[in-house]
């Protein structure tokens, strides 16, 4: 058995890649989906201990999370404001970047989860995290940089294991 043979049968490495694909894919998909989330405040009757409306007739505000295409926000506004003040992040670059970020995370996450062009998908996912790191370095968010570095490391590790890739929809 050669270690360099594509689609090697090293079960440990195969499972390691599978776990990495699951984690990275899930991480990317949910991060992308969350960019379509928002919350709204509803007013509902306050209930008493018996589950009936309180005798005061009180209404309480309850916050409810929901998802919609209209709720899309690539990054928090506070961070967007900081990026807007960075000369190395011109608007003609950030505007399209914000527009595709959420969709890209979802698409790449699904691709990695299902094993669709796994190597290319992992590579693009790594580049995406590198691009995010670029912005965080400029606004001196060192904690975020470190966090993304872990992601990049895991992507790199997964790339080194692609020869053990199984349970994938495409072979490459």
């Amino acid at each position, binding site marked *: 058995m050669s270690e360099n043979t594509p689609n090697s049968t090293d079960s440990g490495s195969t499972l390691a890649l599978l776990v990495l694909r699951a984690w990275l894919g899930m991480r990317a998909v949910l991060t992308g989906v969350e960019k379509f989330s928002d919350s709204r405040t509803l007013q509902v009757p306050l209930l008493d201990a018996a589950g009936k409306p*309180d005798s*005061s*007739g009180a209404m309480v505000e309850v916050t409810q999370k929901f998802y919609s295409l209209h709720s899309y926000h690539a990054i928090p506004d506070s961070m967007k404001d900081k990026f807007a003040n960075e000369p190395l992040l011109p608007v003609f670059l950030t505007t399209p970047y914000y527009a595709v970020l959420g969709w890209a995370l979802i698409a790449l996450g699904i691709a990695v989860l299902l094993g669709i062009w796994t190597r290319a998908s992992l590579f693009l996912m790594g580049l995406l995290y590198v691009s995010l790191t670029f912005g965080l370095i400029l606004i001196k968010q060192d904690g975020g940089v470190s966090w993304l570095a872990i992601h990049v490391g895991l992507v790199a590790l997964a790339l080194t294991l692609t020869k053990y890739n199984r349970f994938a929809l495409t072979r490459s």
Partner: protein
Amino acid sequence: MSSRETDAKAGGLGRRRFLKTAGAAGLTLALAPLRSAYGQTESADALNIALVGLGAQGRVLMDAMLKIPGVRFVAICDIWPYARTYGQRYLKKNGFEVRAYESHREMLEKEKDLHAVVVASPDFWHAPITNDCLRAGHHVYCEKMMSNTIEGARSMVHTMRETGKLLQIGHQRRSNPRYLVARNRLLNEAHLLGRITAANAQWNRAVSADLGWPNHTAMPAELLAKYGYSDMHQFRNLRWFKKYGGGPLSDLGAHQIDILNWFFDVSPSTVIASGGKDYYPTHEWLDNAMVIYEYKLPEGMARAFYQVQTTTSAGGGYYEQFMGTEGTLRMSENPKYTQINREAAAPPWDQWISRHLLAAAKAPAKGDDDSSANDKVDARETAELAAYYLPVVLNKAIHQPHLENFFNAVRGKGTLNCPADEAFKSEMAVFKAIEAVETRSLVTCHPSDFIA
């Protein structure tokens, strides 16, 4: 007879009595579908209302009543022609043609189809007007203070009992769902604060100039004298003069001292106080006062500090705060002043959050420069308290629920939230504080003092 019995005896406005009254007043036509300014079809539950007093508070009540379905203004009363004209025009804009009177007695003689009267006159007229209205067979909503004298307030309770009519006093917080939930659910059901040992309340307002009046609207001296006023300046600034009202402890403090008594569910046992006429040269009443009440609660003594300042707005607005071994509840009619804090060693409040009685406050965003926000500067400091807020909302004017409670009771649907005998207890606590200020001594209160 207790107020609850009075409610039952009054029976509100039964259908039979309503039809009888309506028939006598030729209301048959009026019962045909009418549309109020708010587009609501008036029903057989419609109530004919007179408003006495069209000053600032009367206008607040008028606005609140305009939003209540089934309230039909038929008459207004004010000694000031300027206010009467304003009221007639304002109500006409909102779909009500009302008759205007200078004297409430004339109004009572001529208006035979009234179901209830709302009184927002100066304090010293509350008792005479309310008593006359009750004796004329009308239910009454009267603004607080009930009277500028103990005798006046007591007479109102007695008349309520004698006539069997409803008399609601305008301590509107008692119908505010935010206050009802705080008292009934958070304190009495959840015992959220543990043992309450202290309370403080305040209403601080910045310096303000005396009220004026358009020259052409000034009333002649004879007219002012007829209704007990010395001159136009005192008429416009009556809250500051002893023969008309009770000063800031009464105007502002009465609401909040009522909350102390209502939440503690007991009247104070002693009062000490200090106050004085420190700033305004043209006023008679004190402008600043500090009061300490002692309350003998079943679980032990609790002390309550109350201050009213009319020369500074310092101290975070107006609120009533209850402090216990497990938490602190700060209530205010303004939700932005309301806050609840849990002591660090208190049991978790998660179950109350899940029942929507509480909501966790959002933690303040931490910037780069506030990393030491939680640092203590003294080792004896208590740990920073977790903050919560009351998620109950009031989507109405603050007086509207209390007026709705009154009108519902008139219709025989429920009982009053602040009947006169209940309000009398709180108002006696105000009179006791004024007595403590004036005598500069400890005033001892007996339970019998609070019974009218």
